[in-house]
């Protein structure tokens, strides 16, 4: 009852806020003279980086949302941005989801606390371009074409591959699995029993959803057919190997989820944290199910600090920002360009597991088809 009442109250508040605010559009003017940064589509179009920095400093603060400090090194990145430009970074709802971020853009518009920039999964960037401001960072050419919107509405920032994390001591005598096929190897079934987990519910957690897709690629599926992935986990479940408890650092530490199919940057972060607790965890990128996805940056159309928002993007896409993501075990979107330019941080680069092979990315319609298939098929296949 209480939760439903709460949800209902939240709905009421949201409706009230939306109707109250729909009449005011964002009228915040930028700090610097004549340039209206809210409509500027690149730093040079607004008068260059110096002008952008001055305008952003005049605004004084930046509203970000749903950035966990321990996720992809965001804590350090926010601190560095603040130290470099003297702009306060307000991180609302640090553990929120992409859905929460989009809701905040829609419902907080006109408020001084509305988000300036968002970091959302691709599934939430594609259908919401009408909420974003077009902007191209100065290193725009370094972002691979498949990972950005042609008009500059959204652009990939960091990402990674689906990986298999494993605590070797807990699965012995079987080896740590490095492919999806190995997980189904009947000679290891007994050793993997009850140990294989995803990062939550694939109908709501992007990492779990991507894990299912990677499994699909390994079992005869494709970007247009995720069904084999659902069947794959159905098989793991009937073998008794699948553990439906979503993995977190604590469940690995507790020995409940010894094999974790998750983003490489999460598994690597867990491995690094657990090392000090005497748990040795390895991270491998499965060669048979190579699936990668990138999170996307976008500037809210209703950003209360349009210049600071643009400066934040310039910062994230500078060598400093991109290497910052890598310090958090994530793969920066400009990885290839930086590798050839020699600007990658050598120490951080060593943190990343090796990858062989190349990947392609789903289109919007493939994404929708896969979401529908997982939403309707997951519980039925594994229930």
């Amino acid at each position, binding site marked *: 009852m209480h939760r439903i009442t709460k949800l209902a109250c939240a709905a009421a508040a949201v409706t009230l806020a939306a109707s109250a605010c729909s009449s005011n559009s964002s009228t915040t003017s930028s700090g610097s003279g004549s340039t209206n940064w809210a409509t500027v589509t690149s730093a040079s179009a607004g008068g260059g980086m110096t002008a952008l920095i001055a305008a952003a400093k005049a605004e004084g603060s930046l509203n970000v949302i749903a950035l966990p400090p321990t996720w992809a090194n965001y804590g350090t990145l926010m601190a560095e941005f603040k130290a470099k430009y003297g702009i306060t970074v307000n991180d609302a709802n640090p553990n929120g989801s992409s859905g929460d971020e989009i809701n905040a853009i829609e419902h907080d518009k006109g408020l001084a606390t509305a988000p300036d920039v968002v970091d959302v999964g691709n599934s939430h960037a594609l259908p919401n371009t009408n909420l974003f401001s077009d902007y191209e960072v100065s290193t725009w050419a370094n972002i691979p074409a498949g990972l950005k919107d042609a008009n500059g509405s959204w652009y990939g920032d960091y990402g990674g591959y689906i990986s298999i994390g494993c605590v070797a001591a807990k699965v012995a005598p079987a080896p740590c699995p490095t492919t999806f096929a190995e997980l189904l190897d009947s000679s290891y079934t007994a050793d993997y029993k009850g140990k294989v987990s995803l990062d939550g519910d694939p109908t709501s957690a992007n990492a779990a959803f991507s894990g299912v897709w990677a499994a699909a690629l390994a079992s005869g599926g494709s970007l247009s057919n995720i069904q084999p992935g659902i069947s794959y986990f159905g098989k793991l479940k009937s073998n008794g190997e699948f553990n439906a*408890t979503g993995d977190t650092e604590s469940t690995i530490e507790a020995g409940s989820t010894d094999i974790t199919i998750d983003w490489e940057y999460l598994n690597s972060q867990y491995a690094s944290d657990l090392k000090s607790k005497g748990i040795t965890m390895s991270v491998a990128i499965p060669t048979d199910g190579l699936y990668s996805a990138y999170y996307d940056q976008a500037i809210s159309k209703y950003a209360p600090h349009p210049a600071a928002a643009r400066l934040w993007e310039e910062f994230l896409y500078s060598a400093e920002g991109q290497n910052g993501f890598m310090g958090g075990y994530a793969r920066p979107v400009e990885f290839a360009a930086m590798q050839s330019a020699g600007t990658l941080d050598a120490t951080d680069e060593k943190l990343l597991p090796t990858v062989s092979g190349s990947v392609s990315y789903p289109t919007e319609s493939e994404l929708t088809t896969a979401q529908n298939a997982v939403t309707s098929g997951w519980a039925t296949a594994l229930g």
Partner: protein
Amino acid sequence: MISLVKKLGAWGAVLPLLGYCAIALGLPIWAILWDGLHLTNPQNTSETTGSLTLANLTTSWHGIYLKGLETSLRLSLFTAIISALVGLFAAYAIAQSKGRYFKQAVLTASGVLANFGGIPLAFCFIATIGTGGVFLSWIQSVWPSFALDTFSGVAVVYPYFLIPLMVLTTLPALDGLREQWKEASANLGGTSWQYWRHIGGPLLFPAALGGFVLCFGSSFAAYATAKALTDGTVPLVTTQIASILSGNVIAGENDLGMALAFNTVIVCGVMMAVYLPLRKRSAKWLES
């Protein structure tokens, strides 16, 4: 002015409360229904965004969403029956005890435990039972198919906060059973069975059923525990709403989420329609 107040009488006194209810409960239900009846993602070009439609409600009554509602109802009924039975006996034992401080301590603890749910509770069970170890092997020696991440696992975890809730709601009624009634029944030659069949039982029944309905509602509304334990392999209407409204995978289906929320409002409405008259009856008996 005074005559107006007099004319309004009792209605005048209750007016602020009604106004509050209209805003705090009526408005959200209206908002849910409004959103649930509108279209966000038109499937073909003849429809436009924001037009009136029954599509969301229809979808919410089919396929996986129907299954979610069914599983939610099944889980809530099952856990509520178990918790109501165990809780009632526990509450009776507590009511019979002579220790005043013991009773107070149990009541306070029940108040705390009845609100102890969500991810912390799920993790307590994962850490204790999990996938390997002594506790699990004990449980599996009597219940081989048991696993924490299945329907049966969730059904074992829920009573942890439902039983204290049952104790909390039925203890006042059990305290209201006067010792003299039992003695009077015995004086007239009634056996213990006859006392419970004709006196104690009918007096307790409404309160016990009321407690059961509360357990049902609490179980129906809970979701974080199930979400952390089962990764969506046990479909529940509450986790489905959460996935749609604030997930990272499904985008732009908010109106379907509202339609699902409206279904839960219907379930709650039915539940309250059962609970309120029963509570009234129970109170009448115990006051006399």
